[in-house]
C-alpha cells in the first residue's frame, strides 16, 4: 500500500508482542498480517520479518529464529498455517509462549478447525491480539468488504459503484479485492458507477445483470438490444441465463419476505441491504405468479442453451420476451 494517507501512519496502533490472525478468508488475513507488520515498522524501522510455514517446518526453526542475536535487532516471526502444523511446530510454539523473547513479535495464522487448539488457547491466555478473518460468502459480506476497502484507503465510493463492482467481479473474493485495489490506485476522486463500468463493464456477469435489469423492468427493446450486442461480440449465453435466474429468484425471495426493514430482510436472506432495496423497487409491476412463469421460461431456456434446443440464442431471447411480457401483466 504505497498511498496510505499520512494521518493513518501518524497514529499506528501499538502491536502487542503476540497476535493471532484467525479465520478462513485468505485475502483478509493477508491484509491483517501486512497491517500488523506496517504498524510494527513505525516504531521498529529496522524490523526483520521471518516467515515460517507449517508445510516446510523443520523442528527447532522457531526457537532458533527467536533466539536473541548478536546484533539485537527487532524481529517479527509470522507462523503460517497453524491449522496444518506438525506436532513439532506446535510444541515449539508452546515452548516459545511459555518463555517469550524480548524484541520478538509472534504473529500466528490459523484458518479453521481443531488442529493447533493448545497453541490457540495459550495465545489467548497470553492476551495475544486476535484479528478475525471471517469467510466472505454472501453478497452482503462482499458489499461490506468492498466498502471497507475503499473507506480504509480514504476513498469515497457510491453505493451504486460498490453494487456494480460486486456484480461484476464478486464471484471471487480475491478478484474483488484486487479490483478494489486497482480502482484505488488508478483513479482519483469519487468512485461511482461510471468508473466501475469503465473498468469492469465488459465482464460477462455485468452484461447478464444489465440484461436482467432491463428485462425485469419490462424494457423489452433495451433488454433485447443488450442481449443481441452481447451475443454478437461472442458472449456465452449460459452465464446470462444464470444471472436471469438468480435475479428472478431474488425478487421472489425478497417479495415473500414481508415488509421488514431492509437490513433485517437482508440478514435473513444473506443479501446486501442494497440488493433488498433494489429488488423491492423492481417488484413494482410484478405479481408472484408472473415471476413464477418467468422462472419457468428461464429454466426452459437453460435446457436449450445447454444443448437441448436447436437455437440457444433464440431460446434466451424468448425467455427475455417472456419476462418483459409478464412484467407488463401478460
Amino acid at each position: 500500500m504505497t498511498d496510505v494517507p499520512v494521518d493513518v501512519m501518524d497514529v499506528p496502533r501499538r502491536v502487542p508482542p503476540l497476535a493471532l490472525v484467525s479465520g478462513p478468508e485468505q485475502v483478509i488475513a493477508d491484509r491483517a498480517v501486512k497491517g500488523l507488520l506496517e504498524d510494527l515498522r513505525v516504531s521498529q524501522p529496522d524490523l526483520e520479518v521471518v516467515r515460517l510455514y507449517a508445510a516446510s517446518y523443520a523442528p527447532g526453526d522457531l526457537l532458533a529464529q527467536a533466539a536473541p542475536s548478536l546484533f539485537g535487532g527487532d524481529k517479527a516471526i509470522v507462523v503460517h498455517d497453524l491449522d496444518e502444523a506438525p506436532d513439532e511446530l506446535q510444541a515449539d510454539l508452546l515452548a516459545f509462549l511459555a518463555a517469550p523473547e524480548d524484541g520478538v513479535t509472534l504473529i500466528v495464522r490459523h484458518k479453521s478447525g481443531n488442529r493447533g487448539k493448545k497453541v490457540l488457547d495459550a495465545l489467548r491466555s497470553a492476551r495475544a491480539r486476535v484479528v478475525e478473518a471471517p469467510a466472505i460468502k454472501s453478497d452482503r459480506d462482499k458489499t461490506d468488504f468492498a466498502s471497507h476497502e475503499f473507506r480504509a484507503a480514504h476513498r469515497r465510493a457510491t453505493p451504486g459503484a460498490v453494487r456494480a463492482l460486486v456484480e461484476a467481479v464478486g464471484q471471487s473474493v480475491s478478484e474483488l479485492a484486487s479490483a478494489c485495489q486497482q480502482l484505488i490506485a488508478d483513479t482519483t476522486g469519487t468512485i461511482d458507477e461510471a468508473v466501475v463500468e469503465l473498468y469492469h463493464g465488459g465482464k460477462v456477469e455485468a452484461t447478464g445483470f444489465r440484461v436482467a435489469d432491463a428485462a425485469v423492468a419490462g424494457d423489452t427493446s433495451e433488454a433485447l438490444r443488450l442481449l443481441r450486442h452481447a451475443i454478437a461480440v461472442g458472449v456465452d449465453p449460459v452465464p446470462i441465463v444464470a444471472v436471469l435466474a438468480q435475479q428472478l429468484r431474488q425478487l421472489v425471495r425478497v417479495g415473500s419476505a414481508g415488509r421488514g426493514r431492509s437490513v433485517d430482510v437482508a440478514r435473513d436472506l444473506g443479501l446486501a441491504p442494497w440488493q433488498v432495496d433494489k429488488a423491492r423497487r423492481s417488484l413494482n409491476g410484478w405479481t408472484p405468479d408472473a415471476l413464477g412463469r418467468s422462472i419457468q421460461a428461464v429454466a426452459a431456456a437453460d435446457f436449450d442453451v445447454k444443448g437441448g434446443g436447436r437455437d440457444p440464442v433464440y431460446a434466451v431471447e424468448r425467455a427475455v420476451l417472456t419476462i418483459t411480457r409478464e412484467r407488463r401483466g401478460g
Partner: protein
Amino acid sequence: MSVWSDVVGQEPALAVLQRAVIDPDAMTHAWLFTGPPGSGRSVAARAFAAALQCPTGGCGECRECRTALDGTHADVDLVSTEGLSIGVSMARQLVELAARRPSVGRWRVVVIEDADRLTEHSGNALLKAIEEPTSRTIWMLCAPSLEDVLITLRSRSRHVRLRTPPAEAVAELLVRRDGIDPQMALYAARAAQSHVGLARRLATDEGTRIRRRDALRLAVRIRGVGDAVDAAADLVKIAEEEKDNSLTERNARELSRLLETLGADPTARTQPPHIRSQIAALEKEQKTRATRVGRDVIDRSLTDLLSVYRDALVRHTGAPVAMVNQDNAALVDELAGLLGPEQLLAAMDAIGTARERIEANVAPLLALEAMTLDLRLPR
C-alpha cells in the same frame, strides 16, 4: 450358500445364467445385463463370473467364488466409472486385457458395469474384441436398458433382462445378509423401491431416513411462489447433505488406501512431490464423482417424491397395488385429498421434466424451481 444368494428376485434370469454355466451349448462370450438401478446388474454379473470360475459351478465357498464376488479375482476385471463417460484410452486398455489368457481361472472375464457410459468412440474401440474374442474370454456389459447401449454392442451380445425385485425379496436379503430387523428391512425395501444399496442405507442410517421424509413432505407444503423457491432450495440442501454423508468417508478411505499402496506415511503433514501428484489426481477424480453423485442424489430424491404422487394416484383409482410409502400413508392420503388424478399426473410430468433437465446439465436449482412451481397446491 451359493454364489447366487445375493441375486434376489431374478428367477427367470437366473435360469438362463445357471444353464449357461453347466451347458457349453448355452454359453456365449458376450452378455448384456439390463435392469433398472438397484436391480443388481453388477451383482448378477459378478455371481455369473464366480459360477464360471468355480470348479463346482458356483459353490460360493471356494477361493474362486469368493475372490470373483469381492472383485479381487485375478481373471475377473470389474470396470466402472465415476465420471460421465468411459473414454477411448480406457477401452483400448480393456481390449488389451481381454486378449490375454486367464492366469489362474478357467475364463478371463471383463465386466463393464456402466456400459451405458461408453461413447460411440470407445464403444467402437471394443467392437472387434467383443465380436471375435479369444476363446477363453467373456465380456459382460451392464446398463439400465437396451436403449442405453450402442446398437452395435447390443447386437453382438446375449441379453439378460433383470427386473425390479419384489420388496419382500430385498427385505429378506437385508435380514439375511445384513442382520437388519425384519420390519425395518421391509420399510426400507419399499421406500427404496427395491434398490438394494439404498434400502440398506435407509435401514441403517437415520439421517438418510430423515432426509427422505423431508423431501417427501414437500409434496404437501408448497402453496405460493415463495414456497416453491424455498422448497427447491431445500431439495438442493438435502441433496448436498446426502452427498457429503455418502462421500466423506469413502473419499478418506480411498486416500488412506492410496497412501498405503504408495508406502507413504499417512501422518506426515507434507508428502514428497510424486505422492502429492498422485493425491492431486485422486482428488480430481473424487471431484468429478461428487458432481455425478450430487446429480444422482437429486434424481433419487425426485424418484422418492414421484412415488408419493404415484401412491396418491393409486389411492384415487383404488388399484390393488402395493404402495411405496406404506409407512407414510397419512402423507399419501393428505396429498390424494388435495389433488385429483389429472393434477397428480401433471405433477408427475413436472417431476419427470426436472429429471430430464438435470440430466441434460440444467442448473439443478433452476430445474427444481421450475418443478416446484408446478407442484404448487391449488388455493
